[in-house]
């Protein structure tokens, strides 16, 4: 496992970090987004969409649980916020091996959905706009991916 910590000073920098990761991402990769309400998970995912060349604006998927965007490869944006304490089959597995990038917010509520190899992204609110972003790569492809920040 390889770890890396980066800092962003505003929402645009958070988006830029997301764009950088997604631009280098390979099909079938899974990113887990962690952090409290308001930590910047959706903001960073907006950057990932940009990195995939998706023109459509990414909004919170909380209500629908899953949003799909078409870009260089599809972006599957899953939000498990509403699923706390509920164990169930959502049929989301099919997306994890479907040649797209899957981004899961509140992944702790859907442990069965998390593949062994993935990138875990934890966002922490440090000050008003400053975010500490911890990246944890599990698996060789993901470790290589972190080199975009080298």
């Amino acid at each position, binding site marked *: 496992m390889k770890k890396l910590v980066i800092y962003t000073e505003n929402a645009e920098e958070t988006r830029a970090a997301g764009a950088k990761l997604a631009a280098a991402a390979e099909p079938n990769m899974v990113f887990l987004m962690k952090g*409290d*309400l*308001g930590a910047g998970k*959706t*903001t960073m995912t907006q950057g990932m969409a940009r990195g995939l060349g998706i*023109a*459509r*604006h990414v*909004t*919170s998927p*909380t*209500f*629908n*649980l*899953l*949003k*799909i*965007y078409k870009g260089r490869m599809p972006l599957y944006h899953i939000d498990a*916020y*509403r*699923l*706390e*304490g*509920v164990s*169930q*089959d*959502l*049929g989301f597995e099919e997306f994890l091996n479907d040649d797209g990038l899957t981004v899961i917010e509140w992944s702790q509520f859907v442990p069965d959905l998390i593949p062994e190899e993935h990138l875990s992204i934890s966002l922490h609110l440090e000050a008003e706009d400053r975010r500490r972003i911890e990246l944890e790569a599990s698996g060789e492809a993901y470790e290589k991916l972190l080199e975009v920040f080298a």
Partner: protein
Amino acid sequence: MTMILAIETSCDETACAVVKDGNEILSNIVSSQINVHTLYGGVVPEVASRIHVENISAVISEAVRKAGVTMADIDAIAYTRGPGLIGSLHVGVQAAKTLAWTFHKPLVPVHHLTGHIYANAFVTDLKFPLLALVVSGGHTELVRMKDDWSFEVLGSTMDDAIGEAYDKVARVLDLGYPGGPVIDRMAKTGQPLYRLPQPKAAGELDFSFSGLKTAVLQLVDRERRHGNEVKAEDLACSFQETALRQLISRTLKAVEEYKPAMLVLAGGVAANSRLRQMITEEMAAYPDTELVIPPMWCCTDNAAMIGAAGTVAWKHGLTGDLSAAADPALEMPGEKS
């Protein structure tokens, strides 16, 4: 005469309606699961799909029976194709396709939000150009319609929908689900004493509620850390005033710019009493734009509204076929992507 049977299962409600000529409801059956979801603090998709499956046949036959029609009288089957919860949508789509195949009826796929806008057709004849403020748990959009089937999204939320912000703030204050009605009620006895930021959005007609949600969260944290009691009524009131002020300011800006013949509210948050009051007061200054506020019953999800939109789509020849599938991320006809 046009007779449309409509099916809506995009979220909580299993609904079927029979609509005549696009504005007359012969039946409108809604089976809500809201009590089931209250237990979980939100919609539970698997539970939602299962209950839709259990309800759908009874809801359809009740809608046909109550309308006093037979399937021979129906011209087309309209259904919500998206957006919504994928599992829930599937149930309605399959039911619509089954009916279409069995009774040899054309299928009319409908975008859920066009249905919300067309709910207003039950109140009055729509006038164009029309501006719609669509506000719900999953959407916050200003939509301009030059005629009865063109939809231009002028502005939309950059992050959270307004109804979602209500739900999340309610959760922070332990008020239960859904958050809209309870915050609306509590705000009536509160004062807007807490200062909350008005978040900036990209375009001048766009919306943003994520920063407001975060501000409420940080305020509650800070007050609790300092041992101060947070007065829920006052915070509910402060949040609501800030959130609704944003809706109103964008809407008025669009009214000024596009000078629509009619402004309609649509979606679940249109049931909010304070929003209704504010928009009524503000629109008094724009006598050339007729304001239509739908009655409570047609703000929440129902199938009659899908029938109303479906009637217009049907008249434009916008039929689908049996290969149609639910699309949880369906774009509005004419939406810029």
